């Protein structure tokens, strides 16, 4: 089985040769090809090279386009701050007040030249790995995107106290996000990965999510592709039931410290559930510990045909020893040997 076949089988609850696994190595590719991060996150060819190197090194079952929300903010005109070992961060939000949203061009992806970086990468990766491995691209839903435009506190204030302002923002972000997602899909994206960076239990109440749910569901319904709901590193379980029936959403990635069995109970038996080793923590664990923890997770979920082993939270750190990451693959292979008598 190749990765594509393995993921497809998992989505149908069919048997697989081994459990699929996902490693968030969006950043790590820069380390393998020794690329400075400023260039890596602005030159699509370099990023593509990095991800090819990731695939050749670890053969994970997913290939990731840049897992960076700040880069989306940069596409809207915000300045980025670059770091030696971490993905870039936004210096400040794009806008300081609501009315500035009027200055944006019409909500089409083609009006934001920097988005071409993402689209080019997706196109290159999907061309190279057609029918071999799925390409996953991070994007945001229209209620989460404004956190990039206005910053968390301003967007929260608008949502809490300004219904007209909220509508004004969504009137822009809904068509923009639909168009951008269409562009990602048209360029070959297999899965749209949407982390609820705003609509999560650490930031908003359940009632706020419930109020936005019809908008999210309508948006997901109009998105003509498969969606992966990804915790992104925040607490996620308290709201996972709200998202479980969202149209076109086929997989859910929980946070590193959240309970997979509880997540399964809340999701029901036939949704893809993914997790649950903390990616950023891999740098702090020994290879033996990583192997043991991976085996524990695989044993816990061995009878779940809709389970994908995945690193949760943000990127695996750049300086994580390569042996630490290889241990995950070793554990996956060993578990397959024990379970199915093959590697």
């Amino acid at each position: 089985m190749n990765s594509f076949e393995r993921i497809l089988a998992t989505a149908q609850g069919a048997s697989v040769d081994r459990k699929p696994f996902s490693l968030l190595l969006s950043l790590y590719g820069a380390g393998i090809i020794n690329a400075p991060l400023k260039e890596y996150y602005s030159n699509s060819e370099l990023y593509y090279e990095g991800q090819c190197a990731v695939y050749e090194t670890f053969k994970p079952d997913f290939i990731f386009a840049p897992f960076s929300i700040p880069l989306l903010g940069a596409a809207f005109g915000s300045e980025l701050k670059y770091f030696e070992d971490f993905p870039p961060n936004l210096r400040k939000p794009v806008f300081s007040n609501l009315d500035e949203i009027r200055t944006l061009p019409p909500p089409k992806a083609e009006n934001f030249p920097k988005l071409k970086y993402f689209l080019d990468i997706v196109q290159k990766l999907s061309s190279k790995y057609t029918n071999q491995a799925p390409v996953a691209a991070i994007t945001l839903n229209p209620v989460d995107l404004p956190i990039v435009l206005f910053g968390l506190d301003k967007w929260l204030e608008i949502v809490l106290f300004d219904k007209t302002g909220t509508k004004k923002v969504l009137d822009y972000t809904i068509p923009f996000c639909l168009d951008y997602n269409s562009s990602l899909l048209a360029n070959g994206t297999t899965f749209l990965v949407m982390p609820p960076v705003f609509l999560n239990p650490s930031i908003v109440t359940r009632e706020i999510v419930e109020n936005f749910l019809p908008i999210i569901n309508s948006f997901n319904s109009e998105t003509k592709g498969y969606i992966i709901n990804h915790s992104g590193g925040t607490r996620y379980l308290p709201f996972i039931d709200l998202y479980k029936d969202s149209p076109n959403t086929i997989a859910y990635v929980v946070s590193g410290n959240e309970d997979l069995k509880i997540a399964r109970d809340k999701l029901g038996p036939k949704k893809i559930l993914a997790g649950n080793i903390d990616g950023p923590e891999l740098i702090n664990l020994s290879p033996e510990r990583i192997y043991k923890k991976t085996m524990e997770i695989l044993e816990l979920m061995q009878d779940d045909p809709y389970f994908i082993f995945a690193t949760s939270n943000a990127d695996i750190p750049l300086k994580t020893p390569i042996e630490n990451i290889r241990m995950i693959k070793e554990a996956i292979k060993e578990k397959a040997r024990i379970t199915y008598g093959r590697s």
Partner: protein
Amino acid sequence: MISQQIESLLQALKASDRHAANDIVDEYASENNYEDALKNLLEPALLLFGEYWMKNPDISLANGYIAGKIAEDVLLKTAEEYNNRKDEKIYKGIAIVGNIEDDYHSLGRRLVSVFLEASGWEVHDLGNDVLPEEFIDCALDKGAKVIGASAMMFVNAKNIKKLRDEIDSRGYKDKLMLAVGGAIFNLRPELVEKVGGDGTAPNAISAVKLFKELSLRSKL
């Protein structure tokens, strides 16, 4: 009677019902005044809300933000009273707050400012992306004993160590006290010591207690 009103206000805070909370405070103030409402009603209710917040992980930032708005509402009404009798204003100390260099996640810092002010502190909020020397210069200029530095992410939290080093190199260790806070310190408490913080608080309301403790520990 007051304990019943505190309980009612606590319930309004838990329900994020800004309108009901203001009604409870207004009713109390109509029989007393806003300064008393702040001291006898809001402060104890916020303290209880803070304890509830610490014990209950389901409380979101939105709940805290609305609690902050309620505190701000009462504070503004109290300020109006103060305008007529400024000489009577009593404060608990002077605090400098800001987001550390490269950090732009201002919500937590702003909540801390609101709750500190609501509790009688004079707060100088330096905003986002504040350099170590800016924190210290302002603290010395204003006569503050406590600096509060906020960071949301690990990559920025490391910059707080520069502030620690600057405080120490200027000879203000144990004099200018350093409170650190932000989401990353709740996730990784060991970072408090690593960046040289003198203490932290898990949320904005608890920061009031922390600032008071640090102020008492200061040898300035």
